């Protein structure tokens, strides 16, 4: 699903060049449930942006679903994002003047699906996430957990291959966080690849694979079998 070889990315500001990703290699198969961890400055946000076709890279190869992502113009990038990737953000990023249903329908709006049809589909997704009764509420009238569920519905509506979640539980209490993780797990069970960027160990430990970034390369990959020992280790830390 995702194949990255020798990925380099630097940010240039004036005369300073900040080398963030330094030859990163990464393989994520279809249907995986992965979390990316790392201390701040390790390059996890940068990696997420590149994975999400929100940013380009300097050197290396990035194949998404067998297609090389390189040199796309903004329109092509937008189409790729719309078709392949569902985003979930820490601060939900719902559009404040659109109700839950319209927010969920937004990706279809960009696909030029007509209003009636896209709202119908949006209702289906809201129903699946147990928010049917909240369809006509504005984001300001919902709780954090509800908002994030709306955001998940929005990420799912375009039938993406991958869900990219940037600190999806960062703004939620631990109980709601677990609920959201449960939903993401269900999403994963349907065969969608889910990638979560987080700095919370207990959230990461709910995924099936943890990728720890360190100084712009993969520091450690902990897979399913090792998770128990990982849990023990982080308790000691």
């Amino acid at each position, binding site marked *: 699903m995702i194949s990255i070889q020798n990925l380099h990315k630097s940010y240039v500001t004036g005369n300073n060049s900040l080398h963030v990703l330094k030859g990163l290699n990464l393989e994520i198969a279809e249907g995986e449930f992965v979390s990316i961890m790392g201390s701040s400055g390790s390059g996890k*946000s940068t990696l997420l*942006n590149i994975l*999400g076709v*929100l*940013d380009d890279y300097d050197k290396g190869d990035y194949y998404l679903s067998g297609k090389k992502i390189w040199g796309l113009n*903004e*329109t092509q990038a*937008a*189409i790729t*994002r*719309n*078709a392949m990737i569902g*985003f979930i*953000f820490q*601060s939900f*990023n719902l*559009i*404040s*003047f*659109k109700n839950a249903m*319209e927010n969920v329908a*937004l*990706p279809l*709006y*960009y*696909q030029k699906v007509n*209003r009636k049809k896209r709202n119908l589909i949006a209702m289906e997704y809201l129903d699946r996430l147990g928010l049917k009764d909240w369809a006509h509420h504005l984001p300001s009238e919902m709780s954090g957990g509800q908002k994030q569920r709306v955001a998940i519905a*929005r990420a799912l509506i*375009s039938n993406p291959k991958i869900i990219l979640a*940037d600190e999806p539980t960062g703004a939620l209490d631990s109980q709601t966080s677990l609920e959201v993780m449960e939903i993401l797990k269900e999403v994963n069970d349907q065969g969608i690849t889910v990638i979560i960027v987080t700095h919370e160990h207990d959230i990461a430990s709910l995924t099936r694979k943890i990728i720890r970034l360190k100084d712009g390369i993969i520091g450690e990959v902990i897979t399913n079998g090792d998770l128990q020992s990982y849990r023990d280790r982080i308790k000691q830390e």
Partner: protein
Amino acid sequence: MFDLDRWNEIWYALAKNKVRSLLTAFGVFWGIFMLIVMAGASNGLKNGIVEGVAKFATNSCFMWSQQTSEPYKGFKRGRQWNMDSDDLAYVLANVPEVEYISPKNFGSRMNGGPNTIHGLKTGAYNVKGDYPEYIKIDPSTILQGRWINDMDIRDKRKVCVIGEKVCEQMFDAKENPLGDYLKISGVYYQVVGVIRPETRININGRAEESIFLPFTTMQQTYNMGNMVHFLAVTSKKGVPVSVVEEKVKNIIKLRHSIAPTDVQALSSVNIEKEFQQMNGLFIAIGILTWIVGIGTLMAGVIGVSNIMLVIVKERTKEIGVQRALGASPRTIITQIMLESVALTTIAGYTGLSLGVALLELVNKVIENQPKTGNEVFFQHPEVNITVAVAALIILVLAGLFAGSIPAKRALMIKPIEALREE
């Protein structure tokens, strides 16, 4: 384009900060309002003046004699001289470009005291001697009777045509002036016509307060010999008046032994040239109107552009999210542009409507004023459909222009940066 969500978004963006949107819109409103009102006012001025002179023959020129300013052929400078009746035939015979030639002599003036008597009434009027052709140069409506004709000239008949005011003042409403007699400067003349001038060009006093005698009658009655005070000449179709003016003047100067270089001895006015100058003035006023109007409009548009930049800045995150969700650059540009065009068009259209309404109001007020014969030089302030359509096109273009910079700015927003911004 017509998706409800799109307009919902436009409405939201503008309604979020109503006062700001209104103030911004006011800039455009005022620009277009000014443009319309000024264009209307300058049209009103133009209409007022043009209506006053429109019927006057533009292919005409006038000349009159003055003291010579150069010595010539043994004559000293400062010589008094006059054109004479023989000049008329000579000019007609030798300048084929001349269409009409009409001499005019001036008798007693209205400011010289009462000169006209009818029964118990007396009045002071300008008395002029004219040719039949004069009415073709400075048209008048014949209210009753007729204008001076060729037989009047040939037979030196003692008849007169009177202006509308003269008729009102010298005759009772019940009286029929035609056939009646007026005693003018001691001589009786039979009234044969009453006229109302159609132009506001007056030569030696206003026409409605004038009495017109046949030219030859006047020459003989008041001992003018074959003297000609004033000469009106028109050119044939396709010949510039200036050509005729030059030729006629040269011939007359030659006949009266006046230096060809003497510009003072035979003065003249070229109506064509005057009209051109007037037209030039109107064009200048028109250009000024558009410069000022468009300048004001530009200021408004720049205001819109500015506010759109602020809106884009405020909505950076939202735009970032939309782009992450797959909104193409085109979608974003269209959105910003539509917002800008919507704002300018609504504001501008309001300005357009109110401007036209104001002009209509002024027009009504002017039309309802009683005609005094002394009308102001301001008639029918209006803008034609071309101006209105042009204004609308300008508005849409202005909206696009105002939206282009903010839209470009919105495109430069990287989704990552927008999302990172907390």
